[in-house]
């Protein structure tokens, strides 16, 4: 546990050692607020469905930016060789790094608290739905992070990590979209719908927390963290 805590602390601090964290959070809040309030007054409904509807798209670009540095830089600066010769297991390193990036994303997500406050002033939104949606957003964000983290461990170039991260999350997102399921063989449709990253968010976004959706996100996180450990260990059978 002390090892995970040490990695977590170091990685979490690392976000704030450079201006990236502040730029990231500002841009994230400005973009989501702008896109949301653009439509909010036209629809004229006191809820956040529009806001959470944006997140699967916004995360496509923002989450790989959060994770691109994490392994790529260790590989580039070669600190990986140091890190992996310290008495710490690969699992502990991966979990510590994942938790740090999760906490950072959570801060960005929770700073959008101004949105529900604004809506509450203007109307009478359903608080339960909004809280449920926030939980869903955190889960979905964590799944995106696990993917981005794994991609970062495949390269020593941050830009490459970012672009491949965007592509892979986009593919996993789009396969469950009606856009794809409409033209794919009917036998595959249930599978594709199940695998789609965004589909499980919709019901959560309506305020319904289904254990199947939670299980889905947790398995995506688990699967990609496992791949991450595997890719770190791959140095051993080169």
């Amino acid at each position: 546990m002390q090892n995970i805590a040490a990695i977590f602390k170091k990685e979490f601090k690392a976000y704030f050692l450079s201006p990236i964290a502040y730029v990231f959070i500002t841009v994230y809040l400005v973009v989501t607020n702008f896109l949301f309030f653009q439509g909010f007054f036209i629809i004229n409904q006191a809820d956040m469905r529009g806001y959470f509807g944006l997140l699967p798209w916004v995360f496509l670009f923002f989450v790989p930016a959060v994770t691109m540095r994490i392994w790529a830089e260790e590989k580039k600066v070669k600190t990986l060789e140091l890190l992996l010769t310290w008495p710490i297991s690969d699992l502990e390193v991966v979990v510590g790094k994942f938790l740090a990036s999760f906490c950072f994303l959570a801060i960005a997500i929770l700073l959008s608290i101004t949105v529900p406050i604004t809506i509450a002033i203007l109307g009478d939104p359903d608080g339960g739905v909004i809280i449920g949606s926030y939980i869903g957003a955190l889960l979905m964000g964590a799944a995106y992070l696990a993917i981005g983290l794994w991609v970062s461990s495949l390269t020593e170039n941050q830009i490459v990590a970012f672009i491949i991260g965007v592509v892979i999350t986009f593919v996993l997102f789009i396969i469950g979209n009606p856009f794809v399921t409409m033209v794919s063989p009917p036998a595959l449709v249930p599978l594709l719908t199940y695998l789609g990253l965004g589909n499980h968010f919709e019901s959560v976004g309506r305020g319904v927390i289904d254990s199947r959706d939670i299980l889905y996100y947790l398995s995506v996180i688990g699967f990609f963290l496992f791949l991450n450990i595997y890719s770190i260990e791959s140095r051993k059978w080169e």
Partner: protein
Amino acid sequence: MNGSSNGVMVEVQSLNKRFGDVHAVRDLSFKVNKGEVFGFLGPNGAGKSTTMRIITCYIPASSGTVRVGGLDNTVHSLEVRKKIGYLPENNPLYNDMLVDEYLTFVGEIRGLKNSALASRIDEMVQVCGLSKMVRRQIGKLSKGYRQRVGLAQAMLHNPDVVILDEPTSGLDPNQIIEIRQLIKRIGREKTVIYCSHILSEVSATCSRILIINNGTVVATGTAEELTSQMGSAGQYSLRISGEKTAIESRLRGVAGVATVSIAESSGQWHTVRVIADSKEDIGEALFRCVVDNKWSLAELRHERASLEEVFTQLTRG
């Protein structure tokens, strides 16, 4: 500490490492005793860093075993890593962090806590001469100070074995001397494996040296043993005043002399280089020859093969 026998700290046995077609380490075996500074010497690409990476559990060997303090490093990987302090080649560091933040982070991973951690950091900062730099960002330090941070990192948890992979590369001569003194100080209490391709470094700091080439051991011993083993035929340099042709022919007549050549002449004085045909000392015979011919002698020197020559002989071709 536990389980180590006969004072052997690191034991490498018939180690092999292949990267695809490249056979980087071939059947390498050696032992490092407790409390010695062991020089691991070889030209670039000889397999030094690969061997160190295997010992430190970064990559596994293709075959062969490594024991540190009696523990097999594939079976007891985490235990072995606790015993080792490692400064990898090119000294990678987290450039964003401050020096004390970094050392705290390393200490936490090393299992140090609170006051024990604080006192170890203080000690390392003192030993490595970092006291003025603790609140500086690592990325902004000079190369010499970065190296000290790397050394502090390697010794923070008071390890049994310290492995240093080219710790002085890229430093200026003053810094090299400082780091060398630091390593000598460490070597008084700890087992140190010191990798380098620079000979003067190794001969100045190490009690025993292993020379590796193309992944195999080509020689091992103390610096003196290596030079005497390899110091094949003796070479002598003389400064004699006399007649040039007479000097050449008479010296050639001395028993045991292979070649005589005049390297330099100024007026009556000639610098003569004599090479013996065996390891036998012919210094006295040369002196007698000079006296018998009534020449004046200003200098008679037996030139031993330097470690440098030994190294080139062993690692070339």
